[in-house]
């Protein structure tokens, strides 16, 4: 391919990246240095890091994103493992992906119907004589619903890495006397690590700012940075402060990416040896 055609093929990619990735992120950084009067200032950052409220909110966001990711992982890994062993695994994985075709808001409202005082879960629990429980607006219900929504995104990469494992590796492991447990921890788990890493990235990052769910299901009992961003853009119209929080979110996402990616490189080196 000569240089000219290469440039033509590159143009859409560069335009896309420039207009829809670099420019918006650049604008967020730019806005974060201005106060409401439009003067250049570092006050937004100073306010953020000097305020107990915002720091507590950051801690909250990270904690809940971590819990959501952990629960999604604990459910997804065995699920992906067994699906990859099934006969009609393509059909089963399709069923797992199916809920992602439905809008997030609709799923949240469906959960309201399930978990509310007169909802299905309470009707069942009453039927079995277990009484009525308050489930909506609890931290547990928020984590449950968020994990439910994220699970397909966790299962897919893990499933793909499981399917990619060469069957002869596992047979070799058994032939050489490894138990099923050893085969799992020494062969399968390491080989699916890239899948787990990308699953964790895909789930953890959006979980940092689930403001819609924290209101609908959590009843604003859990305040994450997403809530604060929404407030600054819509209510107080302090775009600078909103952008500052956005920058903090972006930076924490970059940190998560770096943490999960370095491990991957080390693994690659080990494998090469």
């Amino acid at each position, binding site marked *: 391919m000569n240089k000219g055609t290469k440039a033509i093929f590159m143009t859409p990619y560069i335009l896309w990246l420039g207009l829809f990735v670099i420019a918006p992120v650049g604008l967020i950084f730019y806005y974060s240095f201005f106060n*409401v009067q439009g003067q250049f200032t570092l006050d937004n950052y100073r306010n953020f890091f000097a305020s107990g*409220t915002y720091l*507590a*909110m950051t801690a*909250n966001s990270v904690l809940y994103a971590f819990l959501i990711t952990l629960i999604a992982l604990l459910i997804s890994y065995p699920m992906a493992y067994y699906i990859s062993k099934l006969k009609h695994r393509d059909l089963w994985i399709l069923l797992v992906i199916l809920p992602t075709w439905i809008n997030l808001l609709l799923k949240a409202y469906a959960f*309201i119907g399930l978990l*509310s*005082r*007169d909802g299905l879960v309470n009707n069942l629990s009453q039927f079995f004589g277990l009484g009525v429980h*308050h489930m*909506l*607006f609890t931290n547990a219900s928020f984590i449950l619903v968020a994990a439910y929504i994220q699970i397909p995104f966790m299962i897919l990469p893990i499933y793909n890495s499981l399917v990619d494992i060469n069957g002869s590796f596992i047979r070799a492991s058994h032939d050489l006397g490894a138990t099923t447990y050893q085969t799992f921890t020494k062969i399968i788990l390491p080989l699916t690590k890239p899948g787990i890493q990308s699953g964790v990235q895909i789930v953890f990052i959006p979980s940092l700012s689930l403001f819609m769910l924290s*209101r*609908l299901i959590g*009843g*604003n*009992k859990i*305040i994450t940075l997403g*809530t*604060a961003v929404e*407030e600054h853009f*819509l*209510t*107080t*119209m*302090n775009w600078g402060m909103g952008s500052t929080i956005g920058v903090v979110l972006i930076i924490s996402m970059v940190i998560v990416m770096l943490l999960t990616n370095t491990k991957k490189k080390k693994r690659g080196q080990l494998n090469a040896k």
Partner: protein
Amino acid sequence: MKRLLIAITSLLIICAGLAFGSNELQKTTGDTGSKVLNLYNWGDYIDPSLITKFQKETGYHVNVETFDSNEAMYTKIKQGGTNYDLTVPSDYMVQKMKQDKLLIPLDKSQLTGISNYGQDYMNKTFDPGNKYSLPYFWGTLGIIYNDKYIKKGSIAHWNQLWDKKYKNRIMLIDSARDIMGLSLISMGKSVNTTNTADLKAAKRKLDKLAPNVKAVVADEIKMYMAEGEAPLAVDWSGEAAEMMSQNSHLHYVVPTEGSNMWFDNLVIPKTAKHFTAIYKFLNFMSEPENAAKNAEYIGYSTPNTKAFKLLPKQIQTDKQFYPDQQVIDRLQVYKNLSQQKVEQYNDLYLEFKMKH
């Protein structure tokens, strides 16, 4: 792959065909080109049959676009690139838009129905002399309770919300100004206070309310209350009307020590172009018959006193939405606060939300 392409193409063609068809249908009901009026309104905030009637009477086609918060509307108009002829900001937003020179004054000589509006609803501090705005609807902030769980008539004061027996049973509307406001009123302070000590005290008092708060939610509060998820809620009268139409056990109370009185107002933003249509529409909506029809449809309180007299007796005597003069005298209208104070209200409120 080929089949997928065919499927997608045929879907697109069907959608385009339908869009074209509905566009054609709309054209025949309205009129072409310049005979239009662009109304930027809250969602479901006008009786659709009135729009049809207006179009038939005047021949102007009304395009309605909707917004869901004052701030969203403000941002869109300020950013430009729109051509809205009329919009419906709340009280404090009228003041803010006025300060930012986003409004065009009303030409009183072209208004025929201005005398239909009651004195209680005109000449408010957010727009003295109604230079820029005509009241569209008004309402209050109050307490909604479910008589299945709470004795009918037993709720009358804000301070009752702090009662220990309502632990984890109250839902609040997610609005900084209103929740801080109810705390301020319960302490006998003004909802427009800029005194930092008062605001901090109001927030400390809210923290004590936290154990009773089940959730802080937005529009969903209507659904939750109608389903009986909680026995108590704090919300606006208009939202209460909607809940009550779905669940007859619900009642609305304006606490006797006072509350917020809010107004939604018709104003002409700077982006307006079709002035004949604008004044025709303003006069049309001021006609008692039309305003009454609209009030019956929306369920909010009308500031049009002549329209009020046309409403069914049952609505006229409803103290929940048309409270006694005594109560009206104690209601306070929000003033637009400085950016610094808006942020202080919101920051304190955010801290309360984190505690609860």
